[in-house]
């Protein structure tokens, strides 16, 4: 196993660090670093001692159920919300200390950040002027997000999907090396989601970094390199998607009084297995039939056997289910 398991002091949730070598590498070229970030709203802890980082040139999915604290975290990262404790940096600096932040960081935080009576093109023009960017960027980004034809329309006539695209256009104005997107797929039709995926992919492939939040793993699983999963404001896991997939391979759970003997019998047939307790073994990437045959051949007694069809989505749900707590549900406000 390349994964190590540790327990944080203040939580019962397992924090599983991904491949430590990979992590050390990314530490050197992290474009976003979040350390011990905490936000309390009155008695509600929306974000609780959260630490993770986003490697340069990667797409990192920031996952968690609604109310897990994703939006609050992103707003703290962008200097919009004052953290109760902890710090965050983008390209090595707190957002407030970046010179011309719009040229370094593009962010899309919600689909409603537009004056309804303003034309899309004017919205972008205002931001260009404020940020000191060339106004020629307006038409470029409108074309880039596929809104070139509707730039002269007032935003109140825009669908949710069009607003998401306009939000993305806003973020792209300064040609930033870091993109931060909060639930960008909300309101996009399937074609729009596909477009967004390929857009983010090509964006990161150019050496730039993307941090994209979602409450649906499936929505971004095809796009991201790494995932950061939080629940109740706490880190559940940070790992590469490949590692996460490894941990969710289908397997067979077996109860047997001869755990060690079964593991050896399976190994002899080329089936990887782990002894979990003296009485239970989990055989990886195999079927109940194969385990049964191996056990019979070695004369191993089996009391109980269950096939486990993990998939990423279920795994994600398992990791984050405790959050159906109404108190934390309201915490992301």
């Amino acid at each position, binding site marked *: 196993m390349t994964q190590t398991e540790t327990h944080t002091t203040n939580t019962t949730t397992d924090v599983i660090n991904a491949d430590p070598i990979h992590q050390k590498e990314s530490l050197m070229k992290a474009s976003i670093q979040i350390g011990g970030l905490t936000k309390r709203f009155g008695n509600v802890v929306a974000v609780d001692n959260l630490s993770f980082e986003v490697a340069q040139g990667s797409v990192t999915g920031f996952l968690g159920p609604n109310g897990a604290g994703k939006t609050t975290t992103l707003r703290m990262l962008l200097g*919009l*919300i004052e953290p109760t404790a902890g710090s965050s940096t983008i390209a090595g600096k707190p957002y407030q200390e970046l010179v011309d932040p719009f040229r370094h960081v593009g962010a899309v*935080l919600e689909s409603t*950040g*537009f*004056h309804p*009576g*303003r034309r899309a093109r004017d919205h972008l023009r205002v*931001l260009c002027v*404020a940020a000191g960017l060339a106004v020629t960027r307006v038409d470029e980004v409108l074309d880039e997000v596929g809104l070139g034809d509707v730039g002269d329309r007032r935003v109140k006539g825009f669908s949710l999907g069009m607003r998401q695209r306009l939000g993305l256009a806003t973020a792209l104005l300064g040609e930033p090396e870091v993109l931060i997107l909060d639930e960008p797929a909300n309101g996009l039709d399937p074609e729009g989601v596909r477009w967004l995926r390929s857009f983010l992919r090509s964006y990161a492939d150019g050496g730039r970094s993307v941090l994209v939040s979602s409450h649906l793993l499936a929505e971004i699983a095809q796009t991201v390199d790494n995932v950061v999963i939080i629940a109740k404001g706490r880190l559940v896991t940070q790992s590469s998607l490949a590692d996460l997939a490894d941990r969710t391979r289908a397997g067979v759970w077996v109860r047997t009084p001869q755990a060690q003997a079964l593991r050896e019998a399976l190994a002899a047939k080329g089936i990887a297995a782990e002894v979990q307790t003296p009485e239970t073994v989990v055989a990886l990437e195999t079927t109940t039939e194969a385990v049964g045959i191996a056990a019979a051949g070695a004369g191993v007694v089996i009391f109980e056997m269950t096939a486990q069809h993990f998939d990423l989505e279920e795994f994600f749900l398992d990791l984050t289910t405790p959050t159906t707590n109404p108190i934390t549900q309201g915490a992301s406000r």
Partner: protein
Amino acid sequence: MKNLIHAELLKLRTTRMIYGLALAALAFAAISAISAISTAGRSGGGPALSTAAGIRNVMSAGLPGGILALVIGILIMAGEFRHNTATSTFLISPHRGRVVGAKFAASALVGGALALLSSAVTLAVALPWLATKHVHVDIFSRNVGLVLLGGIAAMTIYATVGVGVGSLIRNQTAAVAIALAWVLGVENLLVSFAHEIGRWTALGAAAALTNQQTNSDLLPMWGGALLFVAYGLAFAAAGTRFTMRRDVS
């Protein structure tokens, strides 16, 4: 900072709201001047047009239109929170003090411009009409000039006070409603019926700016000017402080 002020002005120009309010202010100036001239010297109207006070009364008739500058100021600030555009605004300039500063500057520019236009409308209505009544008005005389200048200053400060109000009261509709009810209701009553308190209100100060001691219940003009500027600065300081600390979510 220059970029931010420019952007604030562009924000105003790219929605229809400002044109509606500006039109209302100009229409108000015209109607006030017409009503002041047609009722001058009659019972219930102002002093006769043959007197200096009568001319001042006509020239300052549009002053209550300053309240619209107050509304514009409120919208400049509270509108950002109403439509969540505050997020992009503060992302571009995480130094919020600069954003608020730009909004005060933009509101003063817009308030001042609107005041100039209002004065122009007042003059456009009054001068030809008064000429037909054989009343000669020298707009550069101390009598008329100070009234016009005071009116322009009042509208300019009203707009900046509005930005302050908009930062203190986050909800745009509530901010406009409370500000209007306060100035037109509470302060208006105080100025009319409780002079000792009324002269110290924003409305009393604004009225003093254009009054030139005709109404002894109000502060002298310079006093009104100082007090009204103080109101503007106090709201600016409070608004900036509030906006600096607030979480934008």
